[in-house]
């Protein structure tokens, strides 16, 4: 399937990308991360969470949604 990946905050800065599309065969978040780390090696050093349908997912969650969001630590308030 074709995924839309969104990056926020420092992740958008270091990847120099706010949004990109990529094709992805079915798999888990860990599988997706392998693809993303290959494309943006600098991501591997950073702390972030992955959200699908506005909910955080773990490494073994299946990617089922076309929009995946990478979120760095929060800093509201």
């Amino acid at each position, binding site marked *: 399937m074709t995924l839309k990946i969104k990056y926020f905050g420092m992740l958008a800065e270091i990847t120099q990308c706010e949004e990109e599309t990529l094709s992805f065969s079915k798999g888990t978040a860990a599988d997706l991360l392998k693809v993303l780390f290959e494309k943006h090696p600098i991501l591997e050093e950073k702390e972030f969470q992955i959200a699908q349908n506005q909910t955080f997912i773990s490494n073994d969650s299946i990617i089922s949604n076309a929009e995946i969001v990478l979120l760095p630590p*929060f800093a509201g308030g």
Partner: protein
Amino acid sequence: MTKERKPKPVFIEGAISAEFIGNSIAKHQSKTTIGAHDIFLGQVRADQIEGKTVKAIEYTAYEDMANSKFHDIREATFKKFNLTCMHIYHSLGTVKAGEICLFVFVSSPRRVDVFNAIEYLVNTIKEQVPIFGKEIFEDQSHQWKVNS
């Protein structure tokens, strides 16, 4: 209180003015079951970091998720505490040092509920809402803020 409330706008472009806060307080003077208000204000600090001074924070958010989180937090807080009303505003964009970026306002017949609710609300917002802050130094360099 279990009725569902419709989502209220939280994000404000730029700093939250003292006048806006004063007007918000004034609007509550017709609500005569209220005995206690508690207001939390987050203000941007001119922190010194390795010899450089923060002059502003630029806020961005994953707005769809942030708005739905704010809504969930509102509902949970109304269920946990006996509140008459609740208002939450957060800045997006640039907020200078000394300016206000977060305004949380709770009201109740009694003080114990506002003390407990304000602390719960502010901590939960900082922990759960996807908002990002870029601390801009006077020399235009920056670093990314992380809530502690």
